[in-house]
């Protein structure tokens, strides 16, 4: 009846410091990228990709999503289409 799952720390040791260094490097890369002379679109697109990547790292590793049940991933994913819908729909006005 009782599920004796261990606490998170026992069956894995998340690479917190590694993620930290990746985040640090990516932040510096972002700042550098922002000042490259690229067309506005590619600047924006590249920076968004980098920002989302960093956000995913924080969510997956620091917020432990990687080791949480898949149903929680589904839950967390729910606002994402809503965000996209609002912004893209209203952008068509301009």
């Amino acid at each position, binding site marked *: 009846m009782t599920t004796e799952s261990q606490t998170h720390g026992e069956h894995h040791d998340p690479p917190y410091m590694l993620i930290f260094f990746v985040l640090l490097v990516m932040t510096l890369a972002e700042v550098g990228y922002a000042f490259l002379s690229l067309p506005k679109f590619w600047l924006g697109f590249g920076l968004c990709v980098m920002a989302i990547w960093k956000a995913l790292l924080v969510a997956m590793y620091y917020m432990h999503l990687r080791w949480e049940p898949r149903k929680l991933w589904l839950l967390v994913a729910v606002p994402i289409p809503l965000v996209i819908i*609002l912004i893209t729909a*209203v952008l*068509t006005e301009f």
Partner: protein
Amino acid sequence: MATTVATAGDHVAGAEHHELGFIRTYIFSTDHKMIAKQFLVASLVFLLLGGLLAGVVRWQLGFPGQPIPLIGSLFSDTTAPGGIILPEFYNSLVTMHATFMIFFAIMPLMLGVWGNYLIPLQIGAPDMAFPRLNTFSFWISIPAGLIMLAGFFVEGGHAGAGWTSYAPLSADPAFSGVYMGQILWLVSLTIVGFSSLSGAVNYITTVINMRAPGMTWFRIPLPTWALFVTSWLVLLAIPILTGGLIMLLLDQTIGTGFFAPATDGEPLLWQHIFWYFGHPEVYILILPGMGLASEVLANRSRKPVFGYHSMVVAIISIAFLGWVVWGHHMFQSGMNPLLGTSFMISTIIIAVPSAIKVFNWLGTLWRGNIHLDVPMLHALAFVSMFIIGGLSGIFMASAPVDIPIHDTYFIVAHIHYVLFGGSLFSIFAGITYWFPKMFGRMFGSKLGKVHFWITFVSYNLVFFPMHTMGLKGHIRRIYDPNQYTFLESMQPLNTLITVAAFVLISAQFIFAFNFFWSMFRGNKAVSNPWNSNTLEWALAPTPPPHGNFVGTPRVYRGPYEYSSPESIDDFLPQHLPPDRVQRPPVPRDPGFLPTGD
């Protein structure tokens, strides 16, 4: 079958004996049932207030320029000097009627009352996941309500830009003449948003994590399903409104320029943000009612809900699609026409799951053993009135049709058919149905039927003619229709509607009287007077004690096994173990199965 009569104060064996004082029991209770009752009292008060505000609006339309009789002298000179309503006050009245009804009556009734009362009981949980957050959810709504009321008494009067508060009218006192009132409106709604949000977090967590063993997802009664899905809408839509409200508040107070054309702000942005919240909001207002109605219709027909699974899928579909239809409130705003077309398509599509539900309600009733009790009358009114409201919605969904009918009384008719005909009748069905469980006494049936019929007839007299008026061009929110010659011919109709409206409002006092009379003097109720299958009726005592059940319930079947061939009774409770089910001595024909002829 076993029916137990329990009185309040019975101790549940095994539960801790709590000697909570008056304050912890009645004021700052953490018990979901008590909090539900607190929401009930507060929201019925605001419902009455919203109705009275509508009464004053109707006075102006029915008897334009005439002093309000009897109470006219109570109004100040800035609102109705000599009892004659001023245009600015009229604008506040229509704004506040909608605001109070939507945010302080219907939402708290649907979520604060039914979400709180039903969810733990129907899923077999002892209380909500976060009882203290629940207490907070109620008590934060009270200052919000008081702040909203305060707006009537400040200089410049209350907000008068409509409950939709379009910028820049609402953001600039130079346009609206209102400063403090609008601020109070914005602050109040921001605060009440936290009430709704905390409720949503509580309800979702409780339904996901606290279902009794055997209460699988597709054994959950429809009220709880509807409330669960609605809570998701609240969780995700309310914060959008909050953001918009804060931006509008800053526009008005410190002069940021989000929605102000003078500084290149975008009024259409306000409309998009508002309706992105606003459309899920209207589904928040109706979905729980659909769940309540399904429950009453099944039980009072002694039949399973027709197509239970598709009912669940329809609720979820409506919630999903509800996010991509918001632009249909903005067809005439000057928005991108192509975007408008996409909204037209999605809006027409969303009629489908609603229609599925309507057909399923009819299927539930078909060949049923109909008991026309008071809750059933209200539930039947819900279905029929919602059909009318839904049909008018199909007209409005078509952008070209919307061109002449936008902001006319056709829209007002639609709104009130779905919100009164839909939401409110379902709420009446819920109150009269669950009254015995909440208060241990039966809701007075004779007065209940009197209230129902007067309400039903007068309500239709008020709102049905509005369809025609709107098609003929009667403008919405208008103070003086007679300024237009083409509207003058409708004055008699306006007067008739006003008289009917006064009858409608007066009839609600019958309900209020019956409510309190029954609470103290009604016939004592047995534990399961409706012979329902659901846990709150069949298992929990009446009224349920702190902790709801003795131990943890165990569920063996779905909630709609009415007139089942397996049981000698015409109901088969969810918690009854299979070996304790009494089978009929001979196979029984419930009367609604296909005969194969």
